[in-house]
């Protein structure tokens, strides 16, 4: 860490190393920087423009979510998880609710499961759209941002109509859903799917074959599948490196086993492949939504759970495939109304660890592209 206060005053006796025979330059990027997606601070060691190594300084957004959990009841903590990955709040809620349901040994009714899947996949879509817009903006294409935000707005409208909130939705409850869906929910979702399909082609038209986009993303931030596994990197980043692994298929939760979809993978593990994988994932999400909206069964949306939840003593680890990777909850219960310990396994936090490896020997401008392609949300990194 470099603290500006500790920089020594001008020393005239030692030779000046800032010119010609300079080997290394240490620069500080962030925490207030337009391309760090929040308050990430990266300390770069440079040789000219080449990155020799970097160190992430995180924690600027630390709110002690895990500590809060120990001081709230199971139900009270539910809205807090939305504030971690705030662009994919629904996924966070799904993971938490399912973890507690497992601890309580209850299962949400099928109708609730279907609606959960629809909302979660819509949220994955929204998260990927936000990623695409900001990532393209970092690389200098300003227009996709507005296209994606226009279409994301439609998703947020559906969320708003369903639960009254757009971003931090608190959509799910332990044991199912609090509310039945509003009239016309299916119609809204169907028309959204119809609306957004050509829009994805539109994004691709702007970027996929754009020469500059290719030059900026191909071969940038390469990471192999082996390195991904060793570093615990999950989600689209892992899949773009050629590992066909998706928790929705590998260890199906909710009722994902009822739906047909593919796991898109890449080959080279570079920024371009990650872009393609996420674009394909958006299409797969639409496929799941289409199937789910056709098959919503009738029935209750809430399982029988006690008003005051006291799960039996024990512990459980439950993870889901969030838009950014494996989102896990490790919950320890001591039989009281409050969780004894909640550990969140945040995908962004673990994925961010790979930044150093991915940026080695790349140029400074690539660091920005790689931060963008990792798709981190600082709320989740710092919790």
């Amino acid at each position: 860490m470099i603290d500006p206060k500790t920089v020594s005053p001008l020393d005239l006796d030692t030779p000046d190393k800032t010119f010609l025979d300079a080997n290394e330059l240490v620069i500080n990027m962030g925490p207030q920087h337009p391309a760090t997606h929040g308050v990430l601070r990266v300390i770069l060691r440079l040789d000219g423009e080449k990155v020799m190594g970097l160190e992430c300084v995180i924690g600027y957004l630390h709110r002690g979510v895990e500590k809060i959990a120990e001081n709230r009841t199971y139900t009270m903590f539910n809205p807090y998880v939305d504030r971690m990955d705030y662009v994919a709040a629904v996924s966070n809620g799904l993971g938490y609710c399912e973890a507690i349901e497992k601890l309580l040994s209850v299962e949400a009714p099928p109708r609730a499961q279907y609606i959960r899947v629809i909302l979660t996949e819509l949220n994955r879509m929204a998260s990927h759209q936000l990623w695409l817009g900001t990532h393209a903006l970092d690389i200098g294409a300003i227009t996709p941002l507005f296209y994606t935000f226009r279409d994301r707005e439609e998703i947020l409208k559906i969320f708003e109509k369903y639960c009254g909130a757009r971003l931090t939705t608190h959509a799910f409850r332990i044991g199912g859903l609090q509310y039945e869906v509003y009239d016309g929910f299916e119609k809204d979702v169907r028309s959204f799917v119809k609306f957004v399909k050509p829009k994805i082609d539109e994004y691709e038209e702007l970027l996929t074959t754009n020469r500059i986009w290719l030059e900026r993303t191909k071969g940038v931030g390469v990471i192999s599948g082996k390195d991904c596994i060793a570093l615990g990197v999950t989600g689209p980043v892992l899949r773009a490196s050629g590992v066909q692994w998706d928790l929705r298929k590998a260890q199906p939760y909710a009722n994902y086993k009822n739906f047909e979809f593919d796991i898109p993978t890449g080959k080279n593990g570079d920024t371009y492949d990650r872009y393609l994988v996420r674009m394909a994932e958006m299409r797969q999400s639409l496929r799941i939504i289409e199937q789910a909206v056709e098959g919503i069964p009738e029935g209750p949306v809430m399982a029988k759970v006690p008003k005051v939840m006291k799960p039996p003593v024990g512990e459980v680890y439950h993870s889901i495939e969030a838009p950014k990777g494996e989102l896990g909850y490790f919950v320890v219960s001591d039989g009281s109304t409050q969780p004894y310990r909640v550990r969140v396994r945040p995908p962004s936090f673990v994925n961010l660890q790979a930044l150093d490896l991915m940026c080695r020997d790349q140029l400074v401008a690539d660091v920005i592209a790689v931060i963008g392609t990792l798709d981190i949300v600082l709320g989740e990194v710092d919790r």
Partner: protein
Amino acid sequence: MNAIIDYIQSYLRTKDVTPGGDGNIFWATVYILLVFVGLSVAVIAMNWLERKILAHMQVRLGPMRVGPHGLLQPIADAIKLLLKEDIIPAEADALVFWVAPFIVVLAAFTVFVVVPFGPEHAITDMNIGILFMLGVSSLSVLGIVTAGWASNSHYPLIGALRSSAQMVSYEVAMGLAVVSAIMMTSLGEKGGTLSMIGIVESQYQQQEWFLFKFFPLGVIAFGIFAIAMVAETNRAPFDLPEAESELTAGFHTEYSGFRWSLFFLAEYSAMIAVSSIAVTLWLGGWLRPFPNALSGPTWELAFSLVPGLAFVFLAAMCFYNTARMPKHPLFRIQTMGLAGFGALLGLIGIVLFLPGVRERVQDVFWFAAKVAAFMYLYIWYRGTFPRYRFDQLMRVGWKVLLPIGLGLLICTGLWVMRVEVWHEVIVPAWLGCIGLLRRIF
């Protein structure tokens, strides 16, 4: 007193006063004022148009609140910028910090001294016109470098270094393209010339825009220039010095208020300046379309009516939008403003129809229309392209544009020397060169 008035009247009546001619100080002064005012208006209009066009490309509306369809937005911005506190950072080198924006603006405006808006519409005509333009526009680098250095801050410094490296590199390719166009002038009646007016006249005499001359050499030269000029002016996709996601705002990060607006002014007038060079060298400058093929009084009349028609069309669009404004008391002033603006445009259009005016103005109109097309291209690039990385930018400049430019220069030279036998040789050889280059890079 009477003598002076007589002198001025006789001066005004002289027909043979041409730009750069003897004793043309009066008209030069008039044109300096006209160009200065026109350029400021153009920059203001460009500001509004860029925001509007970009917004519509990006499914937004852009400025809508200040005046009808945001027409007064640039004026509001200008007032805001002038009233804003002008901050000079404590650690900055105050003198250099103060001087830098003036260097940039001075360079950007001085270029227009030799821009020919018409055969008689120019401040002056120099026999080294194009050289003067390239030279003076290269001086704006100095302002940018000193601005970045004087801010005494990291991002501006990196932005300034990037900017100057980029401008110096692309100037080379730009120069090569320009030289190939100058070579083409030697086939005109007067022989080779560096004068901006002479270059356009040469295109008229050769009955061909240099864009289509020696196909495909003219197109290639124009292509090189069109790429290099975007890099010269630090615009997307070569806007690395101002790369917002990397360097916040590049060399003018620390500037605010009036001084910042000078950079803004300079950037846009530099864009107009390089577009004028491109228009003059390859697109026939002030020449209307088909000046040779479609000549004769009927065609002359038809083409001279176009400027007026264009303004009337704009006025009609204004009235159409006036009719579409919401019928609500809150919008009354806006609606009236839009109608008034339409009326103003229509009035200009009608004035342009007048016989005395239309002949004099049509040159300027065609020149401005061609430049406007370039301005639209600039905005279009910004809406569609991501940004190049610095090494890629340098590679494009030095390894692609420069070799192509050199080859182009040789080919043009040979062609101009009337080595007609080579006609069958040069084109295949040239295409082969391009193929080879593409293979290598």
